[in-house]
C-alpha cells in the first residue's frame, strides 16, 4: 500500500486569500443572476444560448478533470500499479473539477428549481444526448466522492467504515472508468445536432471519438501539469520516472487524433477552409499544431526525461485540447442572422470564481488530508 502524506503548513496563504476574493466577486454576480435573471450578468442570447459557463466550466472543465479517469484507466485496466502514487491527487482534482462543473450547471440552467425533472422516469427523454450526459456526470460526481472517501475516512480514523467501503469500492472504480468514457464522448455527440450552425471544420460524425480522445489526452496532460507544478510549489521532488513513462503513451494517442481529425475534414472536402486565412481556419490550424508540437516533443525518449519539455508538451496538449472543445461549442458555432457573443465581465468573473474555488479546495485538501505520496528519505 502506498504511503500518503499530509502536507501541513499554513492554509491561509496569500494565493489562498486572492482566490477567496475572486470567489466573493463571483458569488456577488451569481446572486445577481438569481434575482434578475441570466441576462443581467451574461451576454448569452437566443443565437448563442450557451456561453462560457457551458463551454468552459463544463465542456473544458470536465476534460481537465479527466485526470482521475486517465490514471484509473492505466492503473486498473492496464494493471500498472506502479502509477498508483498519482491516483489520489488525480482523483482529487477530478472530484473538484466535476463537482464545480455540476454546480455551475445549476446557475446556467434557467429553471434550476426543477432540475430533478430530468431524472423523473415519466419525464426522462432517453433519446436525449443531454439526458445521458446529465445522468452520467451526476452519477460520476457521486462515484468520484465515493472513490475519494477512503482519504476522508483515513483522516477521521473511521476504520470500520473504510473496511466496509473497500469491500465494494471495485464497483465505483469500474463505474469511474465507464461513465467518463460515455459522457465525454457524448459531449461531442451533443454538438452533432447543431448541424449547419457549426462550422464544417468542427462538425463531424467523428465528434464523439474526437471528444473521447481529447478527454484522455487532456486528462494525462493535467496529471503531468499538476504533478510538476505541485513539485515546484511545495518544493517536492518531481515524479519524473512515472511522468516520463506515462508520456510515452501520448504520441500514439496524439497521432491517432491528428490522423482522424485531419483526414475527416479532408474527406468531407473542407480542408481548404483551414487555409483561407480566416479566424476559424487559423484556430483549426493552431489547435492541431499544438497537438503536433506535443507529439513531436514526446516522440523522443530523451525529451520525456526533461521536466521542462514535459511541462511545455503538457501545456500544448492542455491548450490544444481545450481549444478544440471550446471552438466546437462557441467559436465554430454560428447560428446565422447576425447574432454575436463575447462573454461579459460578470459572466467571466463567475467562471473565474469557479476556477479560484477549485484552487482553494486543492490547497486546503493537500495541506490537511493524506493526498500526496509520502516522501522517503534518500
Amino acid at each position: 500500500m502506498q504511503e500518503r502524506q499530509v502536507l501541513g503548513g499554513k492554509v491561509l496563504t496569500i494565493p489562498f486569500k486572492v482566490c477567496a476574493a475572486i470567489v466573493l466577486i463571483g458569488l456577488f454576480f451569481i446572486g445577481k443572476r438569481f434575482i434578475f435573471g441570466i441576462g443581467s450578468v451574461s451576454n448569452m442570447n437566443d443565437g448563442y444560448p450557451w456561453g462560457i459557463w457551458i463551454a468552459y466550466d463544463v465542456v473544458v472543465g470536465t476534460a481537465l478533470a479527466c485526470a482521475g479517469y486517465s490514471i484509473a484507466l492505466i492503473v486498473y485496466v492496464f494493471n500498472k500499479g506502479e502509477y498508483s502514487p498519482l491516483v489520489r491527487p488525480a482523483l482529487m482534482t477530478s472530484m473538484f473539477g466535476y463537482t464545480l462543473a455540476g454546480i455551475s450547471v445549476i446557475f446556467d440552467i434557467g429553471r434550476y428549481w426543477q432540475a430533478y425533472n430530468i431524472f423523473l422516469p415519466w419525464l426522462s427523454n432517453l433519446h436525449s444526448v443531454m439526458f445521458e450526459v446529465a445522468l452520467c456526470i451526476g452519477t460520476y460526481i457521486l462515484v468520484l466522492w465515493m472513490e475519494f472517501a477512503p482519504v476522508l475516512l483515513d483522516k477521521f480514523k473511521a476504520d470500520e467504515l473504510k473496511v466496509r467501503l473497500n469491500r465494494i469500492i471495485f464497483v465505483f472504480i469500474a463505474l469511474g472508468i465507464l461513465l467518463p468514457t460515455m459522457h465525454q464522448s457524448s459531449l461531442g455527440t451533443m454538438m452533432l445536432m447543431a448541424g449547419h450552425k457549426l462550422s464544417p471544420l468542427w462538425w463531424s460524425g467523428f465528434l464523439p471519438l474526437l471528444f473521447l480522445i481529447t478527454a484522455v489526452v487532456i486528462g494525462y496532460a493535467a496529471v503531468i501539469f499538476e504533478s510538476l507544478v505541485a513539485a515546484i510549489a511545495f518544493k517536492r521532488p518531481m515524479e519524473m520516472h512515472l511522468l516520463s513513462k506515462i508520456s510515452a503513451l501520448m504520441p500514439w494517442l496524439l497521432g491517432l487524433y491528428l490522423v482522424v481529425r485531419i483526414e475527416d475534414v479532408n474527406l468531407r472536402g473542407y480542408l481548404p477552409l483551414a487555409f483561407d486565412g480566416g479566424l476559424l481556419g487559423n484556430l483549426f490550424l493552431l489547435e492541431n499544431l499544438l497537438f503536433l508540437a506535443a507529439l513531436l516533443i514526446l516522440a523522443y525518449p530523451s525529451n520525456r526525461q526533461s521536466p521542462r519539455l514535459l511541462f511545455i508538451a503538457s501545456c500544448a496538449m492542455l491548450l490544444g485540447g481545450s481549444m478544440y472543445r471550446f471552438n466546437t461549442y462557441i467559436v465554430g458555432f454560428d447560428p446565422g442572422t447576425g447574432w454575436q457573443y463575447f462573454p461579459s465581465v460578470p459572466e467571466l468573473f463567475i467562471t473565474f470564481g469557479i476556477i479560484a474555488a477549485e484552487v482553494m479546495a486543492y490547497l486546503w485538501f493537500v495541506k490537511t488530508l493524506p493526498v500526496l505520496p509520502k516522501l522517503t528519505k534518500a
Partner: protein
Amino acid sequence: MKIRRRDFLKGVAASTLLLAAEQTPAQAKRARKDLPPNAVGILYDSTLCVGCKVCEHACKQANNKPVEHTNPKEPMWDNPQDLSANTLNVIKRYGVEGQKDTVDGFAFIKRHCMHCLDPACVSACPASALVKNPENGVVTYNKKACIGCRYCQVACPYNIPKFEWDSPFPEITKCQLCAHLLAKGGISACCAACPTGASLFGPVEKLRLEAKRRLGMKLGEYYDFPVANIDSTEVQQHRAGGYVQHVYGERELGGSQVLYLAGVPFANLGLPDLPEDSYVALADGIQYAIYKGMVYPLVVLGGLIYIIRNREEKKE
C-alpha cells in the same frame, strides 16, 4: 469458464474495431419519420403576403404576449425586429439595400416554428418539455417539465425556440400552432387573421397538394386561392406570382408541417439550404451504433467490475 483479463481486453478492442468497420458515422443514421396521421400545418405563400402584420398582432393576442418596441425612444406600435421571447410569429421583409423595391423587387417571409417531422428540439430536450403530438404533429412546450438548459435552442436548425433572458423564472417560448385553439376546434390565430390567404392553415397532405398546384400555375393568370383554412369555402382570386419551383419544408431535414412558397430564392429569405436527412437521425444513429440501447455499456461495466475485483483480490 475463466476469462482472463487480457482476453477480455482483446475482445473489447476487437468489437470496437468491428463496430467501427460496420458503420462509418456518415452511414449511421436512422430512418426518416412519417407524417403523423392527422398532421396539420401552415402553407405560407410569400407571393400573396402584403406585409400587413395582422398575423403578428393576432398571434400576440392569442398567446398573451406583450407588444415589443424595436426603438424604445419611439414606442409607437408593436414592431419586433425578429422572433423573441415575446414574439412567436414575425413578418420579415427582404429587399436589396439602397435599391428601389420596384427595381429589384422585395418579398416578405413569415417566421415561426416549422413543426418538423423529426424535431431536433424534441430529441434534444432531456426532460420531455418539448413533445410532438403523435396525432396532429404539433410541437408543444411544457414549462413544468423544462429545466431551462437551452439545448433546444442549440439544436433547432431554424433558431426558433427563444428564452426569457431577463426573467428570474424564465421559460422557453415558441409557436405551438395555437394548440389551445386547435383543442377547441379552431385554427391558428395567424391564419385566421390573414386577409389574403398568404398564411393558410390545413391538413399537411392537402397543403402539399395545394403547394404543388400553385407551382403549376401560369405566371400572371388568375386563379382561386383559399383563405385562412384550406377546408373553408372562402376563396380569393389572385394573379399567380412567379414561383421558385420548390416547396420549402417538404423535404428539408426530413420535412416539416410548415411549408413555404416564394418568388425569390429561399436563401434570401433566411431559409438555408438544408440536407434531406435530419441531424437528429444522424445523431440518433451514431448514438445507437455506439450504445446498442445500453447493451454495450452494461457489458463493458460487467467486464470492468470483473477485472478490477480480480486484481483487488489478488492484492490482498
